């Protein structure tokens, strides 16, 4: 079992899938010689050549729209958007085309495109290298939305995305690209199904729901809570569309208390959807108000990034709030 960090896991998954299937092609900015600004595609140009590892002009609409065309013809394009923050020139292609073409063509023209994009704060990137806007995509029927938090999950989920037949927004938590390595299954058919959350810690006192890089913040918070004798059940959603409501509800029925924590701006964040689902389906189990913790409802700042990003302490305060109600 190889030891890989998260970005190496992306790289390894792309490599093995490209070896397996000649229809898998990559396109994006600086993904060739440069290997991507985060090195997620390092070495792939050398192995697979410029027809399959396409450096593109700077035009996100061009990248995504061209990938859609390729997919319509039968290729399996995997797109890299350099930062999720730069996806908006291609947003029309995602919302109007990629998400709707299967439906509007009566199933005649599905387009299987996987869009990878590093997202989230923590690299001192300011307003435009830090945002977590996964909620836009969860509100767009026709898209799957994947938000892994560990190297192994990244591999299993990215492989599912590439072998599937639906459009996927694959959002990579860049803050933890290199923070730690873990053992990753050597099996080249290792996949993780969409819609199955992972219980990071079992617990009985408070259910804590999160995804992406925030899972690591939540782990730290859960460990701090344990010292205060609050037993936290930490759930990593892994995929937001589809989302594993069953696991969440099961846990809430057990604990009666829930905190939902994400890095994204709080208002209209995906945490609201989870809270609403719980309030609709498990309200009788609740012994405390549903606590949501999000990024502030402001753009993402530069100098004060560390004050902006939800810290383990802030999560802990939310846990306490839920536990002590």
């Amino acid at each position: 079992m190889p030891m890989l960090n998260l970005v190496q896991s992306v790289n390894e998954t792309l490599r093995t899938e490209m070896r397996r299937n000649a229809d898998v092609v990559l396109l994006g900015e600086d993904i060739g010689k440069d290997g991507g600004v985060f090195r997620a595609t390092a070495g792939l140009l050398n192995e697979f050549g410029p027809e399959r590892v396409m450096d593109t002009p700077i035009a996100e609409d061009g990248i995504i729209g061209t990938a859609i065309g390729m997919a319509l013809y039968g290729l399996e394009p995997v797109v890299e958007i350099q930062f999720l923050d730069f996806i908006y020139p291609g947003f029309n292609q995602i919302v109007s085309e990629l998400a709707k073409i299967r439906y509007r063509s009566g199933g005649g023209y599905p387009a299987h495109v996987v869009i990878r994009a590093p997202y989230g704060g923590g690299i001192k990137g300011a307003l435009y290298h830090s945002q977590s806007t996964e909620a836009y995509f969860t509100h767009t029927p026709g898209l799957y939305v994947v938000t892994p938090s560990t190297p192994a999950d990244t591999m299993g989920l990215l492989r599912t995305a590439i072998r599937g037949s639906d459009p996927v927004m694959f959002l990579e938590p860049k803050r933890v690209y290199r923070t730690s390595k873990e053992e990753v299954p050597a099996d080249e058919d290792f996949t993780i199904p969409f819609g199955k959350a992972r219980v990071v810690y079992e617990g009985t006192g408070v259910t804590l729901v999160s995804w992406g890089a925030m899972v690591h913040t939540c782990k730290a918070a859960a460990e701090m809570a344990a010292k205060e004798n609050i037993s936290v059940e930490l759930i990593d959603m892994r995929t937001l569309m589809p989302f594993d409501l069953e696991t969440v509800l099961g846990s809430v029925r057990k604990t009666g208390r829930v905190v939902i924590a994400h890095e994204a701006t709080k208002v209209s964040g995906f945490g609201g959807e989870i809270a609403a689902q719980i309030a609709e389906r498990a309200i009788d189990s609740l012994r405390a108000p549903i606590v949501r913790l999000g990024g502030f409802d402001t753009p993402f700042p530069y100098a004060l990034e560390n004050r902006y990003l939800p810290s383990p302490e802030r999560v802990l305060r939310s846990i306490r709030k839920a536990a002590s109600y």
Partner: protein
Amino acid sequence: MLQVITADGDFDPKLVPDLSDEDLLKIHRFMLTVRRLNEKGMSLQRQGRLGFFMESTGQEACQIGAAYALSAQDWALPSYRDPGMCLVRGVPLATLLDQLMANSADESKGRSLPTHWSFRKWNVVSLSSPIGSKLLHAVGIAYAAKYKRDKLVCFTSMGEGATSQGEFHAAMNFAGVYRAPVVFFCENNQYAISLPARRQTASESFAIKAEAYGFEGVQVDGNDVLAVYKAVRSAVDKARSGGGPTLIEAVTYRMGGHSSSDDPSVYRNDEEVEMWKRRDPIARFTAYLTRKGILTESAVQKQSEEIDAYISRTVKERETVKPPAPSTLFTDVYSEMPWNLQEEAEEFMAEEGRE
């Protein structure tokens, strides 16, 4: 501007493309069919038998001339104003009508607006409403075909208004950079809804925009079906043999309104319309074929009547087809329904059953 037949049917024999008499007559018949279909479409819409319609009268030479230059294996992304392209590709009239009527036989399951084509069997790719976005798909399809070593060309058409969109820019630039076998066909019909072409851009022509992307731009008389055929044919041949993309601007005129919801008299005057009537593409081609001695006015008259009857018959027949089943609301969003959709579908079907 490339022209083969002048407005009164005169022509330069050196320019005439190599088409058999049979082909010429077929082209003429297709043009007539589109004209009659447009008239029928508008009248059905006015009678409330079609929810919406976009006519293309005046642009028959563009549609038919261009589509005739393609081979069956080529892919096409026509615009809403190109029903004729679908017909030339082989889409049966009944199938086209199923799309317009959004019935249960429609390949798109009645989900798309009328004139938003999608005919997989004939390599006519699903069209959306946002202007310009499909141009990129054409580039991707062309690239993929090249990657797979399939010797085919991807053809896409657009209005001149589409050239203002960022996606036009990206499509042209990517096509140039990757030398994709794609043909961009711009039907400059002088209007984008109410905006005259001269206010859409300050550039000398639309064809000249190709310079910005390093490949050829060609301007052609879009009311001259032979000129259109010739220009597209040579662009297709070039693309097929590895020569990369071409942008063709076909100068034409939208004789009717923008759509069944539009009243063009608000923004343009009659003289202009009258002037373009005198350049009618069908009259011109008829004059040419008459001169050539392979068609007569009375034959045209007879054909028109046959076509009318055929269209009416087919419309009546397709009007008997049922609307799409309610359960189709929930399918094809994904390859498999996620739980939230399943739940919605079940609840909906249960309620449907109850009421």
